[in-house]
């Protein structure tokens, strides 16, 4: 059961889901959302909004692409030779261009000015919409750990 749970987290929560951590015995698989900012063969780095970077240990068939927003499911591990924690990737999901994520609906609606004509912006969606998606993820992470009961099993 617990093996199938992978709570959504931000880089600052990695330590809590490392196997050595006391309260993580039930779950040490996590989900992370970030933009791919470096690809180095067997490892990659994703940037999680303004919450910092996470180093990923890739598996052979994880085809990450630079600049794409990805959701990664993986195990929290200690990186080679360091104190730092990273994630060994078990699976990844490409959500496309991060800038488009918040504007998907908008771009669709913009093609129909007859039904949707915002007064404050005619050509391009406002920037706050382009950034909304990661804020939403932050809220999801927040409620995941605030109301654990409906998200994952925990000892506390």
């Amino acid at each position, binding site marked *: *059961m617990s093996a*199938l*749970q*992978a*709570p*959504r987290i931000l880089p600052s929560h990695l330590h809590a889901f490392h196997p050595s951590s006391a309260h993580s015995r039930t779950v040490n698989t996590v*989900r992370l*959302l970030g933009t791919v900012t470096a690809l180095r063969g067997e490892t990659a780095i994703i940037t999680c909004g303004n919450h910092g970077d996470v180093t990923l240990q890739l598996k052979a068939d994880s085809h990450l692409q630079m600049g794409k*927003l990805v*959701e990664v*499911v993986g195990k929290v591990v200690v990186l080679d030779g360091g104190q730092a924690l990273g994630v060994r990737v078990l*699976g990844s*999901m490409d*959500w496309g261009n991060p800038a488009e*994520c*918040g504007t*998907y*609906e908008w771009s669709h609606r913009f093609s129909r000015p007859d039904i949707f004509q915002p007064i404050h912006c005619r050509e391009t969606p406002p920037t706050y919409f382009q950034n*909304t*998606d990661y804020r*939403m*993820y932050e*809220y*999801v992470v927040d*409620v*995941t750990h605030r*109301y654990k*009961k*409906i*998200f*994952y099993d925990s000892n506390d």
Partner: protein
Amino acid sequence: MDSGYKGYSTTSFGAQGMSSGGGFMPGESNSPAGARSEAVATVRPVTIKQVLDATQAYAGASHQIDGADVDKIFVVGQVRNISVQSTNITFKIEDGTGEVEVKQFIDLNDNMDIDASNPTAVPLGKSQVKLNGYAKFFGRVVTTGNRRNVFSNFARPVTTVNEVHHHFLEATVIHLYFTRGPPQKPDRNPSGAEAGTEARAPGGMGVTDDYGVAAQGRPLPPMSPGARKVYNLLKNEPQSNEGLHVQYIAAKLGVPVTEVVKAGDELVTGGLIFSTVDESTWAILEY
């Protein structure tokens, strides 16, 4: 729902469940039985963990999540396996909170264009749900033996990550609604709320609002749905200053005495009600 309880208590309890005798254990009378036929059609966004944790009073009863009956549900998850059988397609989906099998029965009238050589293309062609992609499923929770499944009527792929996140936030809001009551409205005029309560009160049980404001219009602290029901009954039921007895409350609400005692303890601890003539008679604490 209330009429469901009433119908149940008059037919099965006979003497309104007030008689202490009889071979009927109060613990066996579960409200879902009464509620089932009256179950309101609702659609509730849930996490897979909530589906797996859903409780069932007995085999065949409606499932409950956070103490509330669930009818239809929405789940959003990543499809980890698709297996096509002659009568149904089984999706194994996972959303980070758990894993569950979703069965979608094939409507034979709807699938005239079945391509036997490529069965996976057939029903999926309609919904476009892909392996390892996210999808939103609409269906109901089904328990067969000790297996918990979702029987889905409808599925569609989720194409933006925002929708996934939205689903979890929505599920959380509904979870909090049922465990802590609706969000408080700070701008609500206390006297107006009081007037509203007065207006509803004469109807008694039949129009009892499950989620209300405390006496004198104060917002209620967070409490379990059971405690809320008991509180609302105590608030609205005509009574002497001795309050109401546990047995009476249990009969009125159509729930087991043990549940009422539990709810009462919670309310006593919270300082919302107090015991009057004996330990099992309570009245609202007007503070």
